[in-house]
């Protein structure tokens, strides 16, 4: 992926290790997850199944389990592990104390 730029998404302290929180950027709702091993991931905030709040789900390794009907998604690629309804992911990077969103070049635009 060619990266055009970066945007600050949130402070790390706002997402305790092992949990997720929902953030709003330009009208889009993004779930940010912070694993206990220190990695960060970002996905669409709503579960593709019935809109469950994924940030309220359970993290395990690099997966999240939706709190409503327990569908499981791999945070790294959005793949659903319990079926085949995938979740949109956003490329992010961890900085010393925050999470930044990587803005892809228009050709592989995932976020406008």
């Amino acid at each position, binding site marked *: 992926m060619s990266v055009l730029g970066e*945007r*600050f*998404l*949130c*402070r790390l*302290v*706002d*997402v*305790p*290790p*092992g*949990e997720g*929180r*929902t*953030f*709003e*950027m330009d009208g889009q*709702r*993004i779930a940010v997850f912070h694993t*206990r091993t220190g990695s960060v991931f970002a996905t669409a905030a709503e579960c593709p199944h*019935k*809109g*469950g*709040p994924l940030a*309220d*789900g*359970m*993290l*395990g*390794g690099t*997966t*999240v*389990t939706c*709190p*409503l009907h327990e569908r*499981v998604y791999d945070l790294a690629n959005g793949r659903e592990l319990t079926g*085949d309804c995938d979740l949109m992911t956003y490329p992010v990077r961890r900085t010393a104390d925050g999470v930044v969103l990587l803005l892809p070049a228009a050709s592989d635009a995932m976020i406008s």
Partner: protein
Amino acid sequence: MAKQRLVVIGNGMAGARAVEEVLARGGSEMFDITMFGDEPYGNYNRILLSNILSGIQDASEIFLNPLDWYAENGITLHAGSPVTEIDRFAKVVQSASGVRAHYDKLLIATGSRAFIPPIPGIFTEPGKLKSGVFGFRTIDDCSGIAAAAGSGGKAAVIGGGLLGLEAARGLLHHGCEVHVVHLAGHLMEQQLDAPGGAILKKTMESMGVTVHVGKSTSQVLGEDRVTGLAFKDGTSLECGLVVVAAGIKPNAEIGVRAGLTVERAIVVDNHMLAVDDMSVYVVGECAQHRSRVYGLVAPLWDQAKVFADHVTGANRNAAYHGSKLATKLKVMGVELASMGITEPSEERDETIQFSEPQRGTYKKLIVRDGRLIGGILMGDISKAAYLMQAFDRDSPLPEERLSLLFDLGAPPQKVTLDEMPAEAQVCNCNGVTKAAIGNCVAGGNRSLPGVMNATRAGKGCGSCKGLVSDLVAWFAGGDVEEDPSVHWYVPNIPLKKSELVEAIRARTLKSVSAVFRELAGGVEDAGAKPALASLLSVVWKGEYVAEPDARFINERIHANIQKDGTFSVVPPMPGGATTPAELRRIAEVAEKYHVSLVKVTGGQRIDLLGVRKEDLPAVWAELGTVSGHAYGKTYRTCKACVGTDFCRFGLGDSMALAKKIEDRFKGIDSPHKMKLATAGCPRNCSEALIKDVGLVAVGDDRWEIYVAGAGGSHVRKGDLLCTVSSHEEAILISGRFMQYYREEAKYKERTYNWIERVGIERVRAVVVEDSDGIAARLDAAMQESVDAYVDPWGALIEGQETTRFASLIPAGE
């Protein structure tokens, strides 16, 4: 080489199976596949429509290939788009919705439809059935019948064959008074002889179906809606619903219009090719092969294989030689299998027969030259698998004829499995043999679902599932390798609960993350987290190091998540007793925070639904109570009847006891929820007999303690644990029982599942008789847990966490 285009008309059982067979032969490399279906669905298992009508299965369970499957396999599906024209010269088909598709190879698999005999009054206009009259062929027919049946009324089924009887059984399920009107002299005349038909009639009648045989319908009565049937013999029958199951009519018109040879159906050769066109194949009920048109699925599977072999070139010599028909009736409460002819037809044919009409048992075999050519089994079909096999394979029968009908001496099932030849077909729907199941087990698949998924055995009509299960066990034999992980407390740590507790104690692991680090090689498992959190809280009580991420959202923020992401809040209300002041406070909070629904719960409390996450701390603070724990796997609540204070019948003070219980056990973690109740007399107004722990006053301050009752999706009356003679003793023993359950049960195992596993005798011995000498330890452990209680609402209101309750945080600095 460029891909060829394969177009399939008909997305039913034969069409979809044929495409699966093509894919299995690498067909996706050779063909671009396009399918047209009249029905607006993916492909489903038509056979199971009977089960849907009779309530055994749900419509969602019968789909064979969901829409995703088509996309995954690169198949273009036009569902709800029937093909109207085939232009064989231009090699193009056109659908009603205007879609055109070119083909190099065409497969017609349009099946058939319900045959509607031209009885006066059956149609209101050509092709349109009178309201209340249905065929029985599609999902939509099924929903129509179910809706018209509503909650009962009189219904008639025209036709007493396989399908008609299955429909009749389904209508019974809908509460209808059911009449089967059959033209022939006995039921299922295709598959049964007259004595067999007579016994079946009795069996159906004993189930509540009225059977009229030798009866010809002369008119369907009613103006716009059916009101009854009139018969040739001058009689009539009032009814508001008619299901026509008088046979099938192949959907062959499309072949006629395309100029193909059509007799009863489209005529094919041994390669399943239309006799007039080397590019057009036909399979399923719309195909006529050697003058026969089949109406069961087993022949279609064979046809689909021959087609696939031929069209892909996997085997250009593949040929279909016709099928022998064997079938089972899928009517709950009737065991019936039949195969081949029903009466001897040549002098040399020998008949072996057993009849016990009183018990509904009838068995008849027709043997020619030592081979089975026909058979009827009714009432007892334990030999059906073996006999159907012998029939299908034309294998020689043992000299000892009696053993063909009965299992003599040795345990029945074993003889049958042993004597079953390896190539014996176990699942007729999917053509799975005994050997295929054996290979699958040998390949390491030792569970029934595993084998069923891998081989598809048992996934058709389901009637062979018992046999498949027996075979899996039989093949797994002595070394049935039980999956050891079923005994582990969590899937990623290979320890039983007791071993895990030991390891946790030995290494002083007080948090879930510590357990993962030390015992699971640092690998987290989301599903294991809450199970471990619950266990650690039982083991360490006040010393347990709580980590929010190890708990479900409900227990992380101590409210119950709802489907729209809002939460519900339930203040405690022990025994269902409240005060005007408390109600007023609840009302004010509900108004102030725009609670969308205020509802009394089954646990005698008030539920405030639709609270936004960010409002939770304020809602709790203003309610001014501790948490009601209506969300976790913990002690939940204790219901109570009014007891002695006001009730004329009260024998014990159930309200006071409920309050003491709730004060003591509130928030106690456990493997699953624990719901309690106290009843002031054996009338049980508070439903104490179906609670995890229920206390029932029997007079003189004596209380019976019932445990492991259930009143949810599973209903179970609690077992009487013992009788005690004071509130104090009642609380002590209940607490000891709960502690024993907390220590012993698997995570998510309710008391009623647990007790069925370990037995009430064992639990009573430990808890009441102290057989293991651990009563004092259990009491002390429960006391410690009680002492360690902290109100989570209070703690969270005071807590420092900044974003815990935020449902949406603005991004950026």
